[in-house]
């Protein structure tokens, strides 16, 4: 993408960047709005108070989002990140992203009621499925092995916080 934009004689604009600028501006506004709700609690001990920093950062976010938008308007493009397993040049595969986020959310919901061993195994199997794994049994088996190993090693061996859930007393 970026090579295209920097070498092509005509400017290829990446208009989706304006969305990012808007998001930055929105964050800036939220930060400022939130700071206005805080009572003005300055004292001789603390002449600045808790509001100054959010005001500065919020204002700076607004300024940067404007400069960013100006940069995009003038044809600036950001580099998409390349990587070992990344193939750019195709449109984003939102279905895979959605499935993956779904698998993640499922784990967040199920973790405490069912416990890490079950929810972690499901997370692994579902995420692998989302990314194209079609050996369902193998995916689930690896997930279960991983979650059992991590549970015994961390929760029981090292006292790390991991919920046992419905398997409390069995594991």
């Amino acid at each position, binding site marked *: 993408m*970026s090579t295209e*934009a*920097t070498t092509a004689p005509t400017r290829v604009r*990446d208009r989706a960047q304006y969305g*990012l600028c808007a*998001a*930055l501006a929105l*964050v800036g506004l939220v930060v400022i709005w*939130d700071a206005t709700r805080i009572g003005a609690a300055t004292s*001789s001990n*603390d*002449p*600045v108070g*808790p509001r100054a*920093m*959010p005001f500065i*950062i919020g204002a*700076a*976010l607004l300024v*940067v989002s404007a*400069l*960013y938008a*100006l*940069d*995009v308007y*003038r044809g*600036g*493009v*950001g*580099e*998409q990140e*390349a*990587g*070992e*397993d*990344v*193939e750019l040049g195709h449109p*984003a*595969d939102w279905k*895979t*992203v959605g499935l993956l*986020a779904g698998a*993640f959310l499922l784990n*967040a919901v199920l*973790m405490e009621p069912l416990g890490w061993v079950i929810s*972690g195994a499901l*997370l692994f*199997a579902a*995420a692998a499925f989302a*990314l194209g*794994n079609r050996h369902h049994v193998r*995916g689930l088996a*690896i997930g279960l092995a*991983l*979650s059992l190993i991590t549970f015994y090693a*961390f929760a029981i061996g*090292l006292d*790390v*916080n*991991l919920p046992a859930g419905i398997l409390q007393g069995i594991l």
Partner: protein
Amino acid sequence: MDNISALLGGFADVITPMNLLIALLGVIVGTAVGVLPGIGPAMTVALLLPLTYGLPVEQSLILFGGIFYGGMYGGSTTSILLNTPGESSSVVTALEGNKMAKTGRAAQALATSAIGSFVAGTIGTMLIVLVMPQVVDFAITLGSPEFLAIILVAFVGTAAILGSSRVRGFAALLMGIALGLVGTDFVTGQQRLTFGSPFLADNIDVVVIAVGIFAVGEALWVAAHLRRRAATVIPVGRPWLSRADWGRSWKPWLRGTALGFPFGAIPAGGAEIPTFMSYLAERRLSKHPEEFGKGAIEGVAGPEAANNASAAGTMVPLLALGLPTNATAAIIIAAFMSYGIEPGPLLLTKQPDLVWMLVASLFIGNFFLLVLNLPLAPTWAKLLRIPRPYLYAGILFFASMGAYAVQGQPFDLYVLLALGFVGFAMRRFGPPVLPLIVGAILGPLFERHLRRSLQQSGGDISGLVGGPVALVCYFIILGVLVWPLVARLRRGARGDDDDADDGGDDDTPSGPVSTSTIPNWG
């Protein structure tokens, strides 16, 4: 030579069979995870952090030293054997390293990289011992206004120098500082940006931010652009070097070390610049310039040494000032905080044993790395063939586990996913990740020093510019901010206006790899 005896004390603390076993474990796990494609050193350290939670602080540090060097080395193996480096510091290694691998010299490339890393790591760690206490002696005399100025230099340095676009760097930095604002104000107890949620009142843990941006963001980004056919992995035998290779490698190792260490120690962006400078230097000094581009061993030896020496260099500001200068260092600081260690100039006076133990474990981790990696390289290479669905499912698995383990709240998992999407957007649109992490870690510290300086001066703004150190810092900041304007004017005066596609006063979008902009700074 107080330092040396203190260091020997550190060694005495570390060298027990149990501790050595822990260091070995750290190196093995760190290398294994670091070798995995798509996982750079910073993500390795972030993902493996929970591993250390259950241990006593001392052993956590030892494990951590091993993971740190293991993750660094693992990343270079990936770039030599796969040619698609996951992070900027190994871009240069891949240039010659992968060419060597393709012409059947993978074993030599891995060997010169392993031995070069060892040499650079050992010299670099020795330099930490010599330099760090001096920096601490100096830093301990500094007050809040000076620290404020130093943190500002770190902010401007990471946002404006790294990456190709300043405005994108500052956007990332401000997002990070905003994330750091979430929670309870430390002076007045007021809630900021918590939106009434009791879960946010405790601040967002930096580990959650790092894991979300690095690990979850990476998994989502890869999911959107997954390469459906696997990249070709070059088979490798046991690494070894011939006499001729030794002869061609040792000078680049030393030159790379000399370039890497100072760059690591200043907040101007980790290993990217020194590795590239080392590559240029070796190409110029080589007796075999015709081999460059076809797999010259000097082009692997120099940058790899520079990479590791710069990693050692980052430990100086990290231990002496509490300043992170690259992403891995940022996560190390987060780790320290989670162990209840406050990084900063007082650390060496308050807990000298811990510091020297950490330095000693860096030496030991570095040694284990050499011993392990020469024989185990073929095994590591096999890890590159791991099926991608399992790899990224595993990343999400460990990311969830780590984020949950921080506080035991499922709420953190939702925060993690939201941050994952922020990380996704950053990978899509190009703002660099490091300024965000640095902002999140140093933002609260910045505010603390700001308020303390103004408290000392009774609210008088002039209290912010106290003393020569602060003045020097503000001059540096001014220089960094004004430099592109000066460069532009000079270019304009020479009449070669090369920025037809350039985007505005505060931005220079560059080609796919930002190496194209590096020579301007060198």
